[in-house]
């Protein structure tokens, strides 16, 4: 963090405060304004500091940050950092257009949510849960701890450094990252890890064994499961997963799918197939 040299001690302190407060972004989430109160709460250290002597401007700033805000939480501190650096300029410079602060906020929150949702929900959580589930299914009580650590260590680091990056580098940083094409490369790479994990999990977690067997003249037994395994190990789980995926794409509702699978399982049991 060599860029932090021009951040004063006070500012560092406020940034840390903001980082902690940002955890509560959605604490009082409302349909109309989503994380507005959390955003405003997180910005308060800066608002108090920059507008100490001007109660009217302080009220304006509070109202400004009580506006609709919605993004993936780990990336929210980055936007808060940018907003804080803009509040600093606004407090110093009379010609600064305060409306641009909310304009930047709202233009960033959508795209960052798009990237953040797919990375944090789609990849990081999937890796963490995959590993934890395979540990937990054998009764290993470390599973939940491993799960929380794998997910939260990177997430909290992103939150922490995001706060500082947003404040010091601000919007120019986004421009650079975008122009280098890095974002698309990283999204693709993350998607690859995610897909490999989902593939592995489908094989490990979707389980099916058929009981059907044919006895030939008493002694030799032909088990259907062995025959299936010779075609392709895990062929039933694979096909079932792909079938569900196909049905989801055909807009079959998830709840129907779940009850369909329950029905299917009971049917398999009644017919003595499995």
């Amino acid at each position, binding site marked *: 963090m060599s860029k932090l040299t021009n951040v004063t001690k006070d500012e560092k302190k406020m940034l840390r405060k903001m980082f902690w407060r940002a955890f509560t972004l959605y604490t009082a989430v409302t349909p109309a304004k989503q994380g507005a109160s959390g955003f405003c709460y997180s910005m308060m250290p800066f608002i108090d500091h920059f507008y100490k002597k001007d109660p009217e401007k302080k009220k304006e700033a509070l109202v400004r940050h009580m506006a609709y805000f919605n993004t993936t939480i780990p990336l929210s501190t980055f936007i808060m950092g940018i907003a804080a650096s803009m509040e600093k300029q606004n407090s110093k410079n009379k010609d600064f257009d305060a409306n641009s602060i909310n304009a930047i906020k709202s233009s960033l929150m959508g795209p960052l949510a798009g990237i953040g949702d797919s990375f944090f929900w789609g990849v990081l959580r999937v890796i963490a849960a995959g590993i934890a589930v395979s540990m937990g299914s054998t009764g290993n009580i470390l599973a939940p701890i491993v799960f929380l650590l794998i997910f939260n260590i990177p997430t909290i680091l992103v939150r922490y450094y995001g706060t500082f990056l947003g404040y010091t580098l601000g919007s120019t940083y986004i421009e650079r990252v975008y122009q280098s094409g890095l974002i698309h490369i990283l999204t693709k790479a993350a998607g*690859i890890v995610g897909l490999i994990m989902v593939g592995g999990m489908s094989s490990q977690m979707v389980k099916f064994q058929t009981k059907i067997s044919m006895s030939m003249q008493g002694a030799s037994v032909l088990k259907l499961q062995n025959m299936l395994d010779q075609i392709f190990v895990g062929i039933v789980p694979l096909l079932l997963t792909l079938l569900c995926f196909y049905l989801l794409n055909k807009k079959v509702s998830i709840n129907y799918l779940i009850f369909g699978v329950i029905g299917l399982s009971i049917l398999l049991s009644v017919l003595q197939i499995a």
Partner: protein
Amino acid sequence: MMLYEAIVVSLIVIATVGGAELLGLTMLNRPIVIGPLVGLALGDVQSGVIIGASLEAVFMGVVNIGGASAAEPGLATAVGTAFAINLGGGAAIALPLAIPIGILGLQVKTLLYVGVIGFFAPVFDRLAAEGKERAIIGLHYGAWCLQWGIYGLLPFIGILAGSSAINAFVKAIPPVIMNGLNICGGLLPAVGMAMLLKLLWDKKIYLFFFLGFVLVAYLKLPLVALAVLGAIIAVTIAQRDYQISQLTKKMENAPALATPSGSVNEMDSEEEDFFQ
């Protein structure tokens, strides 16, 4: 005894499902965390972990993006696990109980979100305009207490009132259905995986799904190894992509040797690129 259970389970629900809102996206509200916690409270961590893991596999695809969701896995796991441990039934019991509870939980959560907390939005606005910081902070946390205090009543009432009924119901399940539920525990993760696939599927990289499947099906690779392997593949590909993008950028910056002139229609370069 029942009262103790009801209180403990609802405290766990408040701490995890509510805690996840208080500490934003920390994944406290996932089955793999709640199952073991409920197990710990009821004196059977081992079963809690196993049930938590199997519910996580089912609910893994339940994500909350842009407010679109299917069930609330937290309440589902807490109550499902509590009943399963009480009845000694394991994941096969937890699963059919958890799913309807999860759907109900989501309904109540949405109701609270729209019908209770929703009314605070204008109050927040007014407080901000009046510059009352302390009141904003108070309401910020107060709204949380209110919302999750109410939500916590759900498992409390559910366990107190439902125990004997559910006990009788579970005992009445014939073995053939019980076996079906066991099979179901194995098959249901397919739905979760399908939902994840929907999130990640991309024409350029979908083959990696099959790579992961084969590596585990045939080589029995543990998922930790698979994650490391996946990361290595991804980094290698990212490096190549980066080189290629740098190269193309150089080519684009180099003076164009023979560009077929596209000046026939009046498109600017941005537009031209869009239709390529």
